[in-house]
């Protein structure tokens, strides 16, 4: 009996140690510097709020955090889309002026691999910059660093919240350099194929509400010949 108990205790301890090793793995950090930081091309920077109340709408299965916004928005409860969320946000240019609207739709990815610190999400941005054009950004994002450094510390905190500064690049693919794929749709962007990176800057998170203070940024590399000078670049 005592051998059985010690064996069981050993198995539980082993599993816990394994989980702790995964969680504290120093080699499994997200990157804070965008792969586009070294490009010579012009960059189009679009910023947005990731706080639900500051979006136009945010919807999910209705049971996840953050809660859908506004409260009466149709929820994605059907089994095929229960792991999917969507939000529509105003996008601002680098001067903080409204530049357009972005629709982001994202789903938990089947490529998620906890052993390799990959909490993957497949996402697309359908963006319209009125007067300039439209484009689609498709990307794979890794939320491991965000979970480990923001969400889990918030759950561990006695106040069920987190405050600090977390800056991370979410995009990890599908391009080889860890950038997203951008495909032009209409207007000045028609026919272009380029790269983008999405990053987040979080400073407050609540277990009950989700992001309380968090901004996102979508940085798009502009092909030199494709877009005129009116497009805000930095």
């Amino acid at each position, binding site marked *: 009996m005592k051998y059985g108990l010690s064996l069981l205790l050993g198995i*539980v*301890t082993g599993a816990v140690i*394994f989980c702790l090793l995964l969680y504290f793995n120093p080699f499994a950090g997200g990157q804070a510097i965008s792969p586009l930081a070294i490009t010579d091309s012009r960059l189009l920077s679009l910023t947005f709020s990731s706080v639900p109340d500051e979006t*136009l709408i945010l919807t999910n299965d209705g049971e996840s955090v953050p809660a859908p916004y*506004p409260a009466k928005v149709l929820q994605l409860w*059907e089994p095929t889309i229960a792991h999917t969320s969507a939000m529509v946000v105003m996008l601002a240019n680098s001067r903080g002026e409204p530049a357009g609207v972005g629709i982001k739709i994202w789903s938990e990815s089947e490529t998620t691999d906890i052993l390799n610190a990959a909490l993957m999400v*497949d996402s697309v941005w359908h963006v319209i910059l009125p007067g300039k054009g439209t484009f689609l950004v498709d990307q794979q994002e890794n939320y491991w660093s965000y979970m480990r450094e923001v969400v889990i510390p918030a759950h561990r905190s006695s106040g069920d919240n987190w405050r600090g500064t977390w800056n991370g690049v979410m995009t990890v693919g599908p391009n080889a350099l860890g950038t997203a794929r951008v495909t032009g749709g209409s207007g000045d962007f028609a026919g272009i194929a380029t790269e983008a990176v999405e990053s987040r800057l979080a400073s407050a998170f609540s277990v009950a509400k989700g992001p309380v203070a968090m901004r996102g940024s979508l940085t798009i590399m502009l092909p030199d010949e494709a877009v005129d000078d009116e497009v805000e670049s930095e």
Partner: protein
Amino acid sequence: MFKSFTFGLILGLIAAAGLLYVVPVVDQVRERSIVSVKANGGNRETLHVNLPIDRILAGRADLQTPLPPGLEWPDDALLSGTQIELFKIRNANEKVIGVASRIVGGGEQPFIEWAIHMPARGTSYFVLADAANESGERTGNLRTGTREFSSLSGVVAERYIAEDTTTSDGVSGRLELTTSLVAQAEKVAPAEGDEL
């Protein structure tokens, strides 16, 4: 006792690793793709949106009652002439299989765009001409796709079909999308000895 604890510890480490390796963390629910083969034209698939019950968002500057209730659509001249919608999208069996965004742009070159995201299959991005043909159909091309749609090319047709009477579940019409997609031809290098 110490030996059995040590053995259990190693077993626990291996079991945890094995479990995470074998058991998928995310397993999206799939619906069977309902496609028909078109002669020399690839696969045809019909998707649709039941209106108004599948509309998640309807945003336009001059809309009297934007959807959802409580939506504060920006009163910004920048967005005049732009209509943004978000829908649940269904297959021919009336099963919801994804979420789709539709953007209608005004100006000198009006357009309609669809981005259809199906979690278990991938995303397809279509750009359509704003003008409808005599049968009320708008057509366009697949601009790009991800995963299942990444190697495909083809066309899409959009049309609105009004129901004669509102059905018991509140459906007054459907927005139908018919896609005809085919794999792009791959260039194959001739093998040695092949006659060209």
